[in-house]
């Protein structure tokens, strides 16, 4: 762990300025990931700018939807009555992740910025293009059962670890940010990026930009949704594969479909063609399998993670079945519905 300076920002403007003035500075809120990364010498910030006192800690109604302040703890979102009434998919995904202690400390904005759980990324003794661009990616031929099957590059096969973000991708949230050049709104699909030639960059956020809120649009997937997470133990493990499904139904016919996958790519994975295939079709396993086939046609497994392709196929079918039937996966009863 390195030495670092510490400042506390009193306003958003102060926070943005503090970061803009120092290329080695990082924001810190819950610190549930950043502090670990600092202990592992993966992150070596010269300065931490504490943003926990900023007034970004409320959930408010906004343009017919909800605005989740960047500093609202994950636990607060998960148990918020309005979130549970209107966006139960989000609440479910949050409860599928981490532990109560972590959810109490972790924030909405911080959750967006979690870094991968790739073993090599966390081990400073090994090469890693994400940690040290150009050094190589031993995961490609090494221990890669948790790694990506979609959208990877020859630089990086890491996956994005968040559960919350998979739900937000399906819900088409919008991330409001403020930076030295002012405010901008980033559609969720554009917030995280694929590794390409710059695996060190997980998101499109620029240095000095701060997340203000995550806005949930005025839509209703509260009847037909699920968050189905498959992992190596029944709690407190990152997803091997997860599925966030949100449907609107006309009887047995799918009117609107959103489908996002976690644990399979460098970002929450969506496939517009697969979602289009679902629309106007009867909700049955054949339909769901077709969508899964579309998504997984471009899957590329590595030494140890080929099982993820079949697991994702089955999880998509089961998740869509749960959503269509209105029987979402419970996050407390570990029996899969």
């Amino acid at each position: 762990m390195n030495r670092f300076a510490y400042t506390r920002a009193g306003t958003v403007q102060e926070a943005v300025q503090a970061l803009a003035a120092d290329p080695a500075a990082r924001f810190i809120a819950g610190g549930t990931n950043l502090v670990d990364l600092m202990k592992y010498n993966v992150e070596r910030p010269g300065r931490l700018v504490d943003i926990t006192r900023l007034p970004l800690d409320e959930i408010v109604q906004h343009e017919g939807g909800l605005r989740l302040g960047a500093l609202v703890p994950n636990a607060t979102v998960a148990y918020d009555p309005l979130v549970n009434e209107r966006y139960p998919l989000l609440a479910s995904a949050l409860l599928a992740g981490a532990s109560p202690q972590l959810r109490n400390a972790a924030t909405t904005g911080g959750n967006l910025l979690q870094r991968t759980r790739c073993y090599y990324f966390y081990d400073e003794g090994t090469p890693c293009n994400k940690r040290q661009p150009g050094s190589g990616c031993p995961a490609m031929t090494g221990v890669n059962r948790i790694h990506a099957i979609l959208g990877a590059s020859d630089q990086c096969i890491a996956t994005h670890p968040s559960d919350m973000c998979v739900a937000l991708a399906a819900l088409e949230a919008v991330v409001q940010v403020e930076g030295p050049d002012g405010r901008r709104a980033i559609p969720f699909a554009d917030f995280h990026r694929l590794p390409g030639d710059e695996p060190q960059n997980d998101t499109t956020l620029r240095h000095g930009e701060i997340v203000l809120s995550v806005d949930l649009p005025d839509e209703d997937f509260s009847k037909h949704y699920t968050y189905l997470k498959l992992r190596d133990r029944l709690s407190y493990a990152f997803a091997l594969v997860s599925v966030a499904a949100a449907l609107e139904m006309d009887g047995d016919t799918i009117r609107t479909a959103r489908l996002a996958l976690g644990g399979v790519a460098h970002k929450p994975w969506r496939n517009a063609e697969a979602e289009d295939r679902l629309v106007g079709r009867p909700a049955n396993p054949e339909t769901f399998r077709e969508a899964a086939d579309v998504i997984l046609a471009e899957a590329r497994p590595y030494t140890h993670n080929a099982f993820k392709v079949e697991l994702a196929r089955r999880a998509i079918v089961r998740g869509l079945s749960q959503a269509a039937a209105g029987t979402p996966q419970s996050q407390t009863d570990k029996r899969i519905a």
Partner: protein
Amino acid sequence: MATPSRVVGTAQSRLDGPAKVTGAAKYAAEFTAPDLAHGVVVSSAIAKGRITAIDTSAAEAVPGVIKVFTHENRPRTAWLDYNYRDQVAPPGSPFRALNGPEIVYGGQPVALVVAESFELARYGATLVRIAYAEDVPNTDLEKNREAAYVPPKKRSGIKPPPDPRGDAAGAFEAAPIRLRQEYKQAIEHHNPMEPHASTVVYEGEGKLTIHDKIQGVNNTQGYVCSVFGLKPDDVRVITPYVGGGFGSGLRPQYQLYLAVSAALDLKRSVRVVLTRDQMFTFGYRPETYQTVALGADEDGRLQALTHDAVAGTSTFEDYQEAVVNWSGLLYHCPNVTLDYKLAKIDTYTPADMRAPGAVTGIFALESAMDELAYATGIDPLELRLRNYAERDEGEGKDFTSKALRAAYQQGAARFGWSRRKAEPRAMRDGRELVGWGMATGVWEAMMMQSSASATLTPDGRLDVACSTADLGTGTYTILAQIGADALGLPLDHVTTRLGDTALPEAPLAGGSWTAASSGAAVQAACRKVAETLFGYARGLPESPLANADLAHVTFAEGEIRLQADPSRKVSIAEAMRAGGVDRVEATGSVKPDMLTTTRYAAYTHSAVFAEVKVDEELGVVRVTRVVSAIAAGRILNLKTARSQILGGVVMGIGAALEEESMLDHSLGLFMNHNLGEYHVPVNADIHDIEVIFVDEPDDKVSPLGVKGLGEIGIVGTAAAVANAVYHATGKRIRDLPITIDKIIG
């Protein structure tokens, strides 16, 4: 002297519980000293090769960094391997930290940065620059199986496989039912909650007080004296509490060597604590390939059994454990051949991990027995009863006791085994397939030479003490219970002291032998106290016990009473006054009875029944019920005994479904070296676990009739779960852990 059992055998909460939950209990890294310096270990980034350059200048330039120790400047220590062998070292050359530039395993310590604060030491550690010349590491056991060898030197305390009996190969060929399968155990790391740590207090004049994460302080003391050329009188080791060991704390580890080195060199106190990552840089349960072949007649009676194992070890030591021996004693079979070999890989030496060898070997044997049950169409429990061994045929000895049949029956009854549908995939609960599996467990019941003291004061308070460690098992409590009953005192009048080399010597806390060994020593010490006290009582003028002898009195409620007439009595205080003493103190020593151990085989047994519910399509396995029926002789404390078994079962579920240290063979490094990625069971993984202790009187195994409980709970659990998975799904998974990919694959 009658000592009616009043607290022994009851359920008592741990005496050390309040200290532990309030933080009053101090662990090795929590002791401090004036002017304490802090050491942080730098670990090798490569698994094999040599250090070509090590630059510590940047670290040493940090104000507050005192010194950086490397192979280039380390203080001289003993030369011969012999001096580095601790009490349980396997044959070979024990690893020596900072001994030279050679790197022999991944994560090997290559520097110790000592600073005025932990934070400065940790920062300094990031500034040490090391250049390596890398060799290609060889860590893939599968690629080294052909080079497996029978260990030329046997490890002390580990019996090699017994000689073959009958003609297993011939009987196998002749048997109408034959099966031969390969089973695989993954590498597991112990991962106790408490990381390894040593606080070395420099007392001046060459004296050290050491607080070390160790399962027996005498092992640390012996190692330090031998390696650093110190006298036992100058090295006191005090470790009253151990935050879990599971075997990882049996051998002194490198943080001890580094902390003592630094303390002696700097002439000041030093503490070194390993990180969770560094907990993956020493011993582990070895990867093991096993082949089991069973030949049986149509009635399921075993005719031939062969069990071969190839286990990994380091390049520098031949770690050995009993993997295949169990197959020679658990069932009646006339033709048995057992074989155990090692293969070297570029990792640290494996270490004993809870029921070492038995977890591995019994998984294979009991999986194979389950396969035989299906092959013969005989119920798995019935198959085991048909092959029940009335004596240890491996060594040709009778058992001191064996109530395994009762364990099978009571366990099966509680589980509801008779309602099991024999066919795989025949039981369902909604979408989930339900599977019921069972397995047998076995572990040695050992007793070791052990001493303890007992000190009684006139107020009727007793202190019992010895050097052994309580790993969270209940040793503090059971020793107090034994003392209380021995002298007829209430439990809250008895205190226990442990984990100090100034106390009478006890063996390492391992092998499930502590209750039998230290328990007997406490009883022996209390017996001597009773004799002395009784002598004083008889010496009272006109003593009411004047003509009695010890056999005719009872110690109860602070008094010595004549059994025939309890009104004739002398209080403890009166007796001490008569003796002119203010305390009665005695040391008791016990050792195993050689005649008995030569003639008899002593084992604990278990019958484990597991229910799983499997979402086959998604590969999700839930262990919804376990019944573990234990035959372990006399049970001293029903509550801590049950907790021991619960912990063993949970760890067995982990072995079955989750635990695996994954090696990158290109780098030669373990990659999932943290508790986020090395999975052990969490609450959501654990449901109903029921523990039954069957009655098993045993007057031979140990003076108290105790067999020990530390390991038996884990043995057989993984096989029971794997067998249940087969019953649920029809899919036989022979390599642990049984993860999602294997279920859907």
